[in-house]
């Protein structure tokens, strides 16, 4: 590795632009009137090595231009993903391809074809985010290490050319006598403004807020931790996302817990607001109708003890809880959330009626979960259920059931009465009654139904949350560190009765100049001039 030795005797690594020690320009190509101080003119790998493939990849990702381009692409693509709803937010009954085409026309078709219907879970979106992550790591390493070296090694004694080519600069001649006084007065004022002072003879470096320079790197580390947390989600065991529909009165194993936990749902509740809650709501309730106040499942959580296969597990009660929206039940890293509900038929009641007289000879209440075969009504009256279709439909001319849920129950009844000993057949569903063997004397009339609530609960375990929290916290600390404080430096140098003073800040020059003005004011030194303005004016003239 080629090293560069400066006049002042300091040996700098290959690629260094400004001497780490005295600040003299080493790379003579750098001839602009104001020095580029961004990374202290240190040797950055990306600016020094450009030959091998690894160099090229490194240089690609270490470029902020590339980083910003990746951010902007992600931003635009993410925005496109919000034009139409994402597939996973719709509960589709038809294939997504058809849905997008029919609902949104040709544009919907293109949208689907390009994969925007499931953008955020798609591989190329993930790759985009991942490349931002790679860029972050490389970019930070490329800059942080040399910057750290440079700031650590900096000396108060700088080359005059270094001071002259700072953005804020002033020089003047002083007499021997004032020289010491001015120097000391300046020093005192700098200390009052809470600058740290380093001195070497008649060279002085006043510095504050250096730690803010690490802000960006700290915040990038935070972001990387967040990205790692997001990736860990796909590792088994870190993330559980399950779903259960549980009926009032039912006890079920909680999915995702390896049959270790059981839940009983005692009751599901919906409450709505009324004026007694607050008279200020009156207007809104009139305008908007009913507004829901609470969704709640009253549950009991159990832990199952070890049991042999096939044996019923023994349940130990852990706790009673009222699960509400925003108040999940939590245990052992799991959380159970109130998400939805449904209301379903539980039982139906029919009366056995003689059609001519409308007289009723008894009632049967059928539990839709498990109907009995025979209901004896006494006095020779009896109803038999020949078949039961919980979710009735005709398919190919045959009665059948779509599902096991009692959405549309239908029954084939056999009604046995003292005068019809062989029984009459009737097929009864909610919409209609069919009498397959001709006109009957009796019929089953619908008299009422009971319903039951199901609570729709999400079961989730997310072992990556603490990683996200840690990353988020570090990110915030880094951003605040880098943006609420600034790195300000003032160099003073006296050579042969000539007094030089120069200033640099990494941001907010206006405030910095104001601060230096206050420091310099009344010391007999001239105010510092913003040389970037001068050079801009020169350009304008020329």
């Amino acid at each position, binding site marked *: 590795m080629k090293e560069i030795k400066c006049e002042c005797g300091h040996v700098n690594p290959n690629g260094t632009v400004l001497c780490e020690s005295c600040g003299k320009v080493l790379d003579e190509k750098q001839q602009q009137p104001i020095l580029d101080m*961004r990374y202290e003119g240190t040797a950055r790998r990306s600016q020094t090595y450009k030959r091998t493939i690894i160099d090229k990849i490194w240089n690609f990702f270490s470029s*902020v*231009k590339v*980083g*910003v381009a990746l*951010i*902007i692409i992600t*931003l635009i693509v*993410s*925005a496109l*993903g*919000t034009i139409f709803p994402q597939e*996973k*937010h719709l*509960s589709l009954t038809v294939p997504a391809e058809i849905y997008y085409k029919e609902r949104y026309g040709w544009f919907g078709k293109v949208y689907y074809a390009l994969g925007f219907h499931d953008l*955020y879970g798609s591989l190329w979106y993930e790759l985009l985010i991942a490349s931002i992550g790679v860029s972050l790591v490389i970019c930070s390493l490329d800059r942080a290490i040399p910057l750290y070296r440079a700031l650590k090694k900096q000396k108060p004694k700088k080359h005059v050319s270094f001071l002259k080519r700072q953005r804020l600069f002033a020089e003047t001649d002083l007499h021997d006598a004032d020289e010491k006084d001015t120097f000391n007065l300046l020093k005192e004022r700098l200390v009052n403004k809470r600058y740290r002072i380093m001195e070497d003879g008649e060279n002085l470096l006043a510095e504050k807020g250096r730690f803010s320079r690490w802000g960006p790197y700290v915040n990038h580390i935070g972001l990387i931790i967040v990205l790692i947390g997001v990736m860990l989600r796909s590792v088994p065991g870190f993330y559980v*996302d399950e779903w259960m529909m549980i009926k009032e009165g039912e006890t079920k194993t909680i999915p995702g817990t390896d049959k270790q936990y059981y839940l009983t749902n005692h009751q599901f509740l919906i409450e709505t*607001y009324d004026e007694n*809650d*607050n008279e*200020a*709501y009156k*207007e*809104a*309730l009139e305008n*908007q109708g009913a*507004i*829901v*106040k609470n*969704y709640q499942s009253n549950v009991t959580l159990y832990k199952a003890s070890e049991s042999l296969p096939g044996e019923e597990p023994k349940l130990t009660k852990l706790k009673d809880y009222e699960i*509400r*929206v*925003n108040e*999940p039940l939590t245990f052992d890293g799991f*959380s159970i*959330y109130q*998400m*939805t*509900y449904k209301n379903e038929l539980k039982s139906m009641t029919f009366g056995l009626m003689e059609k001519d007289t409308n007289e009723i000879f008894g009632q049967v209440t059928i539990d839709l979960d498990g109907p009995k075969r025979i209901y004896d009504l006494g006095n020779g009256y009896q109803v038999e259920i020949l078949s039961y279709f919980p979710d009735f439909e005709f398919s190919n001319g045959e009665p059948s059931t779509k599902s096991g849920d009692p959405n549309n129950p239908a029954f084939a009844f056999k009604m046995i009465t003292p005068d019809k000993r062989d029984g009459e057949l009737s097929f009864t569903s909610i919409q209609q009654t069919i009498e397959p063997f001709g006109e009957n004397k009796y019929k089953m009339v619908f008299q009422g139904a009971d319903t039951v609530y199901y609570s*729709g609960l*999400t079961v*989730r375990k*997310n072992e990556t*949350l603490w990683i*996200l929290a840690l990353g*988020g916290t570090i*990110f*915030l600390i880094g*951003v*605040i560190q880098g*943006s*609420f404080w600034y790195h300000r430096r003032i160099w003073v140098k006296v050579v042969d009765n000539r007094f030089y003073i120069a200033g640099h800040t990494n*941001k*907010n*020059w*206006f*405030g910095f*100049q104001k601060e230096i*003005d206050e420091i310099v004011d009344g010391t007999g030194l001239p105010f510092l001039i*913003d040389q970037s303005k001068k050079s801009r004016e020169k350009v304008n003239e020329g």
Partner: protein
Amino acid sequence: MVEVSSHFLLASFIIFLFAILFFGGAIRQKGLENRKGNGKRVSGKLGFLLTIIGFLSQLGYFITRWIAGGHAPVSNMFEFATFFSMMLVLGFLIFYYLYRSAVLGLFTLSVTVIIIAYGSMFPKEITPLIPALQSIWLKIHVMTTAAGQGILAISFVAALIYLIKNVNQSGITKSRFWLETVMYIVVVSIGFVLISFTFSAIDYKAQFEWMNKDGFQETYTYYLPAIAGPNEGVLLTEGRMEPLFELPANFNAKKVNTVVWSFLIGTILYGLFRLITRKRLAHVIRPLVKNIDDNLLDEISYRSVLIGFPIFTLGALIFGMIWARDAWSRVWAWDPKEVWALITWLFYAAFLHLRLSKGWHGEKSAWLAVIGFAIIMFNLIFVNLVIAGLHSYASP
């Protein structure tokens, strides 16, 4: 209590109008607003004092409404817009404390007044909270986000002043065109306020029966005369204007109609202005800002992003995720509102990087600040349009 609260809001509105006058007066006095001579003028000091009183009055509105409704008033469009305006004033107070710029006061309060008026055009009733919104994290999330956005908006205001001052008005340039477009949009939002205010003052209501996209009959109440009518709409109220054209069912006809009206009135206002002054709006305002230092504006614009960005991150992303974990069971659901918060965040990250690494200062950085604010406003209005999605709790 609700009444007291709206009096407070009205009072702050009027106080801000006066503050604008005083800041305007401060600008007319000679002398450059730069790093030496500012903050000493009486008129500017009075403007600042009035702004503080106006802010306290807004605070009064906020607290009394909170007491009346029993929950933090940040749960509908009216409440959010007024809270946002309050945060904008807070942002200004911070930056006035740091830089003592009267010009900044003039422009920030003008934007504030428009936003208060804008928010007041939405239903003001206190709505009880649906279960998903009953969380302390929701309040913390919304309030912190609005604070972040309010401070970020200062960056827009400073950038706008920078552009008005520096964009060349004599040549035909892209920046002249876009700056004037921004001014035009401001006039359109004033148009929205004027037209909504006028028709609500005469209590205009027109009912329509129409066919929604699923083929069901629905009724709509228009509060503005219908230029754009709903799909197969039938006017039910007598003596009201028949729509000039009808929109397909998948449009929200009522909102489109409001937009059409705002542009119509805004365009007329803007056209009249151009006819009378024979100059571009930015050109007319320009003399007001000629005394302010460019570097000062640039620094205010940058610094408000530096301060606003972490607050926005904390509020929108971090608190948002904490709340979503309680309410929706997941920290991140790719809900459009969330995605737009992410977009805003990414955009300001890009802003900071461009400034640091490519040295985008001055005009370029000012344009970025304008775009950033446009994204925030889009999100605010977008959220309003899709917020119905949140209410349909029962269907997952």
